[in-house]
């Protein structure tokens, strides 16, 4: 379509520091696209390059047939929602929403109509005269979106705008953003480190690590078929077991780990001897009936410690080989089975185990 956004070999270096390297992606007009990655992965730099505040060191950014190089932010057909929203505190709601039109020389009457239309869109009719400080977090959020949409951009860029809200409001705003995007009918590009947000709202997600795109795909694709150890560990919860391939057969392979040989899918066609990692989602692990249940892929041990997290239990299992294994299991209502000291066997189907080449995994303690 004519307003598809394309990043072609985009890179950005700040002195010796490479913030973004060789990012190429096509974003279809009218879609909800997310860049997902930990702090410092370069996603904000990408957003600022699209909005024009930073010029790429290499590569080009195109909107349809228009090359955006050299077009300053105030002339770009993009609008940016800032992380802290950056609403003008000394202006009223109506003045905020109408500001982009005012600087374009739109008459006060036409501006008023557009402001009303926008307030309707975000379901805040009657708020025109309010001051920004009188609004709640969620309302400010919507005003920021209205202010950006009022100038009728081709692409709306959102820089983690939900991060300042509390959990419940954040979940509510996800649905609302998605609805707003459908109604506005323009491309939304969303930047976040919160995989829940990215998966819930996006048509497509690009997972980023260290300035590069690791994988692009639909939400379920990213979740169910992660293409690298990083994506598998960053998106959603996973139990990770490190080892080496000892046998392959067709779609499957056997990986030798510290807690025994385990079988899983082998989409990357690893061969015997390759260093590998096995990923199993918590909801795919189940408690086997008894110790002698000699299914494939079973781990037997004594429960050492249990941490209840609501959706999941994190259990530390002292494996029969006396190694400690930390596993996360879905809370299916049989939580009493996890009494510390009791012997349990945990198993999973080979189809639910995913074997990927060993690689860097997303660490929880990544700091910007």
């Amino acid at each position, binding site marked *: 379509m004519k307003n598809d956004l394309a990043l072609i070999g985009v890179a950005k270096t700040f002195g010796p520091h490479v913030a973004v390297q060789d990012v190429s992606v096509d974003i279809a007009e009218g879609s909800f696209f997310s860049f997902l990655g930990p702090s410092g992965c370069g996603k904000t730099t990408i957003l600022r390059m699209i*909005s024009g*505040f930073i010029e790429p060191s290499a590569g080009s950014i195109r909107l349809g047939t228009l090359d955006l190089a050299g077009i*300053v*932010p*105030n*002339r*770009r057909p*993009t*609008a*940016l929602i*800032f*992380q*802290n929203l*950056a*609403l*003008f505190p*000394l202006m009223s709601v109506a003045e905020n929403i109408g*500001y*982009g039109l005012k*600087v*374009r020389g739109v008459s006060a009457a036409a501006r008023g109509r557009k402001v009303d239309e926008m307030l309707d869109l975000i379901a805040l009719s009657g708020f025109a005269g309010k001051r920004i400080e009188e609004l709640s977090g969620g309302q400010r959020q919507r005003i920021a979106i209205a*202010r*950006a949409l009022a*100038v009728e951009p081709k692409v709306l860029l959102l820089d983690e705008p939900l991060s300042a809200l509390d959990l419940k409001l954040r979940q509510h705003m996800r649905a609302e953003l998605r609805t707003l995007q459908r109604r506005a009918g323009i491309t939304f590009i969303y930047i976040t480190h919160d995989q829940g947000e990215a998966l819930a709202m996006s048509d497509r997600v690009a997972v980023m690590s260290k300035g590069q795109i690791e994988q692009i795909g639909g939400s379920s694709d990213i979740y169910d078929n992660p293409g690298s150890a990083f994506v598998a560990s960053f998106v959603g919860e996973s139990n990770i077991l490190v080892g080496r391939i000892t046998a392959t057969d067709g779609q499957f392979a056997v990986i030798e780990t510290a807690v025994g040989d385990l079988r899983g899918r082998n989409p990357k066609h690893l061969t015997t001897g390759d260093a590998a990692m096995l990923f199993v989602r918590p909801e795919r692990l189940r408690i086997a009936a008894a110790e002698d249940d000699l299914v494939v892929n079973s781990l037997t041990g004594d429960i050492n410690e249990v941490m209840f997290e609501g959706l999941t239990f994190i259990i530390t299992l002292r494996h029969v080989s006396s190694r400690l294994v930390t596993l996360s299991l879905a809370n299916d209502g049989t939580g009493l089975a996890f009494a510390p000291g009791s012997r349990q066997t945990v198993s999973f189907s080979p189809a639910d185990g995913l074997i990927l080449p060993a690689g860097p995994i997303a660490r929880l303690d990544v700091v910007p």
Partner: protein
Amino acid sequence: MSSALTRFGRLGLAYIFTATGLWLLVLMLLPLIVTIDYAFRPFLPPVDWGGPNDRYTFDNFAVVLLNKFNQTIFLKTIWASVLVTVLSLAACYPVAYTLAREKRSGRARWLAIALIIPFLVNELLRAFAWQLLLSYKGLFNQVLMSLGFISEPFDFINKNVGVIVGLVYTYLLFMILPLYTALESLDPNLVDAARDLGAPWWRIHWDVVLPHAKPGLANGCIVTFMLAAGSFAVPQLLGGTGSLWFTQLIYNQFNAINWNMGAAYAFCLVILCLVFIVIVMWLLRVRLSDIAR
């Protein structure tokens, strides 16, 4: 009150009250009361002090305010001080803005040091330095003549350029610092947001930066205006022979030992400047609480 007592202790609290009280009384109220008292009494030889003629009167004020010459000088002082304030604002705003936006970089630190260093030198000496620079055979004239802009020396001093330039320079920091403080607290995202919404740079300043900086701006302007209007050394050294500053009229009276008339002049200057400031604040919709912020 009780929380202040637990926080500072009895001794600390006593110190705070004494210090504030002394400051108010000795440095503000007493001089003001003495000046007002002098201003409303006639100028008498010491033998008549406390005598029948030593009574409160408006005579001094009538002389000050009804004299055409005084009126002209006063208006000129106000007008020139406004000009000094406007020029100072024009010169300081870009500097303060750059300083505020670059506050994290080392460059800002050097700029701040460069701004402060000249002020380590006494005000009088700086005025003398300007006198040398702007004099008939001074550096400015020599440079301008050698570059061919003028064929004969320009009389900066008598054409009042000296006073204006000197005053702008002398009170530069009093404009920059409040402006900097106000601009420093501006969220840079607001500037980017306005830019992203399509505003050209001058609109960003007019719509976003200046309204935010208004308290600091008012603060800087008022202080600069007051200092300029009340300045004595700079007009004395850099002013032309034919043009007087209002403070020089005050000085002349005190110099002629007529303290009462001098006090009346001084009191008029204070009141008229205050009235002028209140009018300007009202016009710009600046509140007192904004400035104290």
